[in-house]
């Protein structure tokens, strides 16, 4: 298994979500695959824990439009006051 902390994975995932904001909605699977590409062999438990930390810290939220995605917190265009 790759030697990388959950915190580092979460930080890297946050960078990916931030850089894709407004251009592409990234899914949990996209983040997992990107981390595996970067660090090699990672366990499912580690990538799950990193996403959990990303969401629970409030840095990202889940969104849904057709499928579920992980996004930066924002007020969506369709929201009413």
């Amino acid at each position: 298994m790759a030697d990388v902390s959950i915190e580092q994975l979460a930080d890297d995932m946050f960078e990916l979500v931030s850089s894709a904001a407004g251009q592409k909605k990234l899914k949990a699977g996209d983040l997992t695959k990107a981390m595996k590409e970067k660090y090699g062999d990672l366990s499912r438990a580690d990538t799950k824990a990193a996403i959990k930390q990303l969401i629970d810290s409030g840095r990202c939220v889940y969104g849904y439009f057709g499928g579920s995605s992980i996004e930066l917190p924002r007020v969506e265009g369709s929201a009413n006051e």
Partner: protein
Amino acid sequence: MADDLKTPLLDELEKGPWPSFITDIKSMAGKNDYCKDLLGQLEKSYEDKRGYWKHGGLVGVMGYGGGVIGRYSALPDEFPGVSHFHTVRVNQPSGWFYTTDALREIMDIWEEHGSGLTNMHGSTGDMVLLGTRTEELEPIFRALTAKGWDLGGSGSDLRTPSCCVGPARCEMACYDTLAMTYDLTKSYQDELHRPMFNYKYKIKMSGCPNDCTAAIARSDMGIIGIWRDDIKVDQAAFAEYVDSGMDIQGAVVDLCPTGCITVEGKEINIDDSDCVKCMHCLNRLPKALSPGDDKGFAVCLGAKAPIVEGALFGSVIIPFMKIEDGDFEPMHDLIERIWEFWDEHGTSRERIGEFIERISLATFLEGIGEDPSPKMVKAPRDNPYIFYEEYYEEEGASASEE
């Protein structure tokens, strides 16, 4: 209902012999603005022949990616009561058994924080609470969890597992659907609340092939009770059906899809080697016929309703399995192998059934580490062009040259 609201088109839906959802909403319209403006917006939709709901994909509660389906009115100035009208899914208990106290608990929370309208139950199985505002979501979540309830699934996650009443109320149950549902719900909380799949994944558990949860048609993974040995026959009870004047030939024998039943006098004989477990004879003669003793379940994969691609029925992946001594680990192992392979090779918004259709059953079985069996074939092969791998085992050599 609010006296000033006129709804001539909706009023038409109160006519006829059936219960009307309009009558129910009207009964609530004097109590809150959600219901009054819901009627107003719906009447306008009928007048204009278009819907006025907007999608709200970001609303939810902290940490969860499922359980709330966001909706906003496209006419918030005209109908402020439904400016926000989000749906909350509540994870139902196994088999949908409630005490009256439990239902009052939920209804009190919902009357305080939402419209008071419910849908019992949604097609996945959850209790569905219809219509609330964004700022009410966290208070609702806190109130529900304080009483031991939790939200259900939505989005690309494991949808709330659901089951029939199983052995709690039904003599046909071939396994404990309630225990299986409880175990899977508890074991996969992350998958249920934190969308991590390519698309939704529904698991339904039916205790026998009567399939009261419609698992074969409505779930990505249908776990359907079955037995391997012979149907148990009580000839004395069968004789009572004959004596009662029941048309055994017309109601049972002639309707057996494989013609495996014969009757001589007051004795019934079943050729179990031809039986396809359609359940018809057991349903018509429940006192005389019952499932065998060697009970378990089959696992079917791939059913879905026609969103994105066309509708699919499930097909058998595991012909027979048992839970021994309450050990669900073999089931967890199977589920996790399936998820891992689908995660890795599936595409965005591709359901497991579509995935299997795309890559072929043979490739899928190899991917999850299951050996193929004739019991998994759902239709005769119609393509004569096939590879025989043994012809290509040695580079440059073929069986035809040997």
